[in-house]
């Protein structure tokens, strides 16, 4: 708001200057047209003044509000916290702030977009300013800005970013991790296992005769099998296991803090479960089997890629020995 110092009309310079009286009127009208709430408190936190914005948005009558304690007039305010905040403003003579990002709102005020946003109350940025006057005790001015729009768009943006991050990690068909994210995870788990000297195992698996399945029943059937088998395997894993689609009909599972015996046991369980399940496509029962290769980090690998190579050669061995089985890497 304007500084209300007296400007005496000077006839000689011909400059247009306003009298104090007129300036007061101007300031009052501006204060009442502001799209910001303005409230003034005395040092005992009683409301001594407020503007039209607050009057309209609180739907309260000035006569009932002026002279009241702010905590009485607005019981929704967090009193203890706010008193501490006010005392900083008065004692240090510094402004203080409260952003919607930390507290969505202080005052429970309605806003102008109740239909198009999902928040009940107006999101607010509040500023608390120390005001010094000729009278002895200090006053506190509270400015309340409506940031419902900002808040709404920021939340939309965050939601979109989260979705994008999710999409960039997930394989569109099977809804498990995609190759890129899975490989990034393996890199991290490999480094973690090496640093903390923890066990780490890997299972690579492949659907048997998948090409034949596609040729006989069509690619839609192949897709169905990929989806169903992924879901079946996902259900057998622990939360910390990382299951991804390595490519085509090849999948891979990272097993943190798991030794070779544990990984082999899991691989064999997965192998049996997949072989036992009966899938149907166009009312036709379809049986699928998988081959699995299991490897454990020996500590001698120079990179995570070596671990993939070991599991891959075990998978090759399982295929060579007749499929529908799990093999461990012979190193």
């Amino acid at each position, binding site marked *: 708001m304007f500084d209300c110092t007296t400007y005496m009309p000077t006839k000689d310079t011909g400059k247009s200057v306003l009298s104090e009286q007129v300036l007061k009127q101007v300031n009052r009208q501006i204060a009442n047209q502001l799209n910001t709430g303005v409230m003034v408190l005395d040092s005992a936190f009683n409301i001594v003044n407020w503007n039209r914005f607050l009057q309209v948005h609180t739907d309260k009558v000035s006569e009932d509000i002026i002279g009241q304690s702010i905590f009485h007039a607005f019981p929704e305010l*967090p009193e*203890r*916290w706010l008193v*501490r*905040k006010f*005392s*900083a403003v008065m*004692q*240090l*003579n*510094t*402004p*203080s*702030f409260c*952003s919607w*990002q*930390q*507290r969505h709102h202080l005052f429970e005020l309605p806003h102008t977009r109740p239909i198009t946003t999902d928040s009940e109350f107006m999101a607010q*940025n509040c*500023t608390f300013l120390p005001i010094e006057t000729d009278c002895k005790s200090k006053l506190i001015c509270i400015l309340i800005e409506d940031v419902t729009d900002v808040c709404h768009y920021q939340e939309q943006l965050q939601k979109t970013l989260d979705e994008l991050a999710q999409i960039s990690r997930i394989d569109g068909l099977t809804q498990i991790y995609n190759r890129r994210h899975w490989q990034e995870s393996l890199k991290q788990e490999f480094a973690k296992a090496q640093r903390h000297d923890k066990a780490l195992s890997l299972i690579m698996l492949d659907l048997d005769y998948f090409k034949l399945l596609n040729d006989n029943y069509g690619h839609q059937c192949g897709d169905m099998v990929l989806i169903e088998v992924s879901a079946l395997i996902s259900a057998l894993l622990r939360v910390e296991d990382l299951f991804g689609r390595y490519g085509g009909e090849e999948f891979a599972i990272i097993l943190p803090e798991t030794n070779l015996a544990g990984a082999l046991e899991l691989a064999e369980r997965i192998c049996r479960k997949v072989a036992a399940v009966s899938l149907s496509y166009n009312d036709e029962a379809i049986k699928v089997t998988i081959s699995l290769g299991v490897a454990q980090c020996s500590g001698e690998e120079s990179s995570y890629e070596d671990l993939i190579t070991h599991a891959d050669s075990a998978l090759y061995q399982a295929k060579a020995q007749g499929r529908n089985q799990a093999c461990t890497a012979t190193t």
Partner: protein
Amino acid sequence: MSEFQLTEDQQDCLQELINIAMGQASDQLARYLDTFVYLKVPSIESVDAKDLLQILSQQQNTMAVVSQGFFGYEGIRGEALLAYQDEDSGRISDLLGYEPGELSEDEQLIDISSILTTTFLNVFARQIGNQMSYNAPKLLPSVQNSMSEHLQQISFSWDLALKVNINYQVTDYSFNCNMILLIPETAIINIKHVLDRILAEF
């Protein structure tokens, strides 16, 4: 010497003004926080925006950075960055006199930052016959490398900055933080005018 560099007299004058402001600010803070606040003698240097980027990104394990813009008369303006390390901020809500759970960790950092920045700059402004206004403090997003990323975004508008480094310590609450005031080129020229005026009066 570039027009943005301070002369030796100007540098001494600014150092003295900051020392006095720090003394008064720490006194006010101690009263408000009801504990001793230690401030180390600040360092003032002119830095190339590019070097600044390097200096600040070298500060490892910075957990959070809070930024607050300030602006006063005579074109004095800049940005205060408060950098916190992980181990320095466990008891801020205690220090501020809040109940546990009354405010989030982010809010604690923002709150204490605003108090430190505005208390110091208010006193400093008074020393040079000025008055400061402030933007709302903001926690910079993304903890890792946030400092250098942030600077990358702002630094293209100026090549040289006056960097004032102030360290706050509250040993009773094992609190420690670094305040860095960044003052861009055009504002440096304005500060030089103010310093010259003070030196002439002296």
